[in-house]
């Protein structure tokens, strides 16, 4: 299975490496043409403003929205990616006029846990995965989700992992650990 990582900015290589270890064929995506050739893809960690801006400029955002709506295309957003798959944002998102992909019925708090100084690691209980060492870096969280959105993990009362149809979101970075279980989970769902 060809799995793309939106490679405009952020920790692209870390996801590519994890995918390769899981036996998938990883593809670095920088254009719409490359996007059309994969079976699933990941929006990595990075700066959501930068990745978002570049996704809109390159026309990728339009293609992604269409593929998810029409083909139930598997998408996973980590950290910055989680912000981009949300449908509504907090004050910060509104103030900066940041556009979101709206792939999940969720309201995102872009900087839910503070700056780098407050970044943290913690053992988290993730539904279907159990204990997972979650790495949060200037991480977001979902404040609220709609009924169609299933919560997979919470921390400090905030939603930090969720899924809705073919779309998965995590506020933390499994790609920064050697634990491949969430990548395997995403790939298993994508194969269905």
């Amino acid at each position, binding site marked *: 299975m060809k799995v793309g990582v939106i490679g405009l*900015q952020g920790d692209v290589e870390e996801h590519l490496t994890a995918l390769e270890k899981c036996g998938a064929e990883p593809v670095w995506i920088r254009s719409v043409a490359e996007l059309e050739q994969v079976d699933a893809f990941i929006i990595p960690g*990075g*700066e959501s403003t930068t990745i978002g801006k570049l996704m809109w400029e390159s026309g990728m955002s339009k293609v992604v929205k269409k593929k998810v709506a029409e083909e139930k295309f598997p998408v996973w957003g980590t950290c910055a990616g989680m912000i981009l798959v949300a449908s509504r944002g907090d004050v910060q998102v509104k103030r900066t006029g940041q556009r979101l992909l709206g792939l999940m019925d969720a309201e995102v708090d*872009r900087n839910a846990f503070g700056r780098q*100084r407050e970044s943290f*690691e913690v053992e988290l209980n993730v539904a279907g995965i159990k204990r997972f060492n979650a790495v949060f*870096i200037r991480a977001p969280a979902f404040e609220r989700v709609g009924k169609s959105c299933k919560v997979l993990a919470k921390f400090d009362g905030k939603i930090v992992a969720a899924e809705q149809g073919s779309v998965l979101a995590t506020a933390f970075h499994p790609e*920064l650990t050697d634990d491949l279980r969430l990548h395997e989970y995403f790939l298993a769902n994508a194969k269905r």
Partner: protein
Amino acid sequence: MAKVRIGTQRLKEGFAKMVKHVVIMDVTSAKQARIAEKAGAVAVMALHLVPADIRATGGVARMPDPKVVKHIMKAVTIPVMAKCRIGHFAEAQVLETLGVDMIDESEVLTPADEESHIDKHRFKIPFVCGARDLGEALRRIDEGAAMIRTKGEAGTGNVVEAVRHMKCMNRQIAELVRIKNKENRLQDAANAYRVPIELVKKTAELGRLPVVNFAAGGIATPADASLMMQLGADGVFVGSGIFKSTQPERFARAIVRATRHYDKPEEVAKASEGLGDAMKGRSIDSLSADERMQERGR
């Protein structure tokens, strides 16, 4: 509740990984920070004066005014970094307290300690440090740096030193890869670089620096950014190049575009078109020995 860990090396190096593939811009005010953010900068570096002005002004260059740092932090949502002097751990403590996301222990400012760098393991936030060769890079990593950048020669608008430093690191890493199965030769390299052998082994296995590595120091045009990316940089720092050009906003956008499409000459050409004058720049030969910032902090 499960135990929460903060300030781990994984978090520090992870932060650096999140800023890969784009541009970090030097800014001296909230207004400049907003211009940088709008142009697509992934982070901004707060400092008192851009390197070209530090050269012009002379005197001791220190960390920026905390008030300015706070204004910049308030003005943008992207990460904010700030520079402190080499070895000046008290300046670093101040910057950490202010809540900046990363500290650049920088040779661009006047060094405070000629003997040693800051013990970066003692801080909760990550550091980036300059290096001219693999030895400097590995020593900084051993001290706790979560990210490396070439030193180049800041404030000159001349990319030649950044190229030299990047190529030197690449060559030395290639040499480690060649000897990666020869324990005694790796030990010799570790001795020469004055770092633990584990760090040398890790570099040899990865075939690259074990942390994110940016280009910096003298990058003044979109083509300069493309050049450094093609030489293997994970991203670029642009200092005086932007706000010393005649049209900073256009210049900033152009550098971002060229960095993103670094391997597509037609895109770099478009980015370079009609930009007006780049910063004037200086040849390295015209610098006296004490004007060469790269000699600071080995």
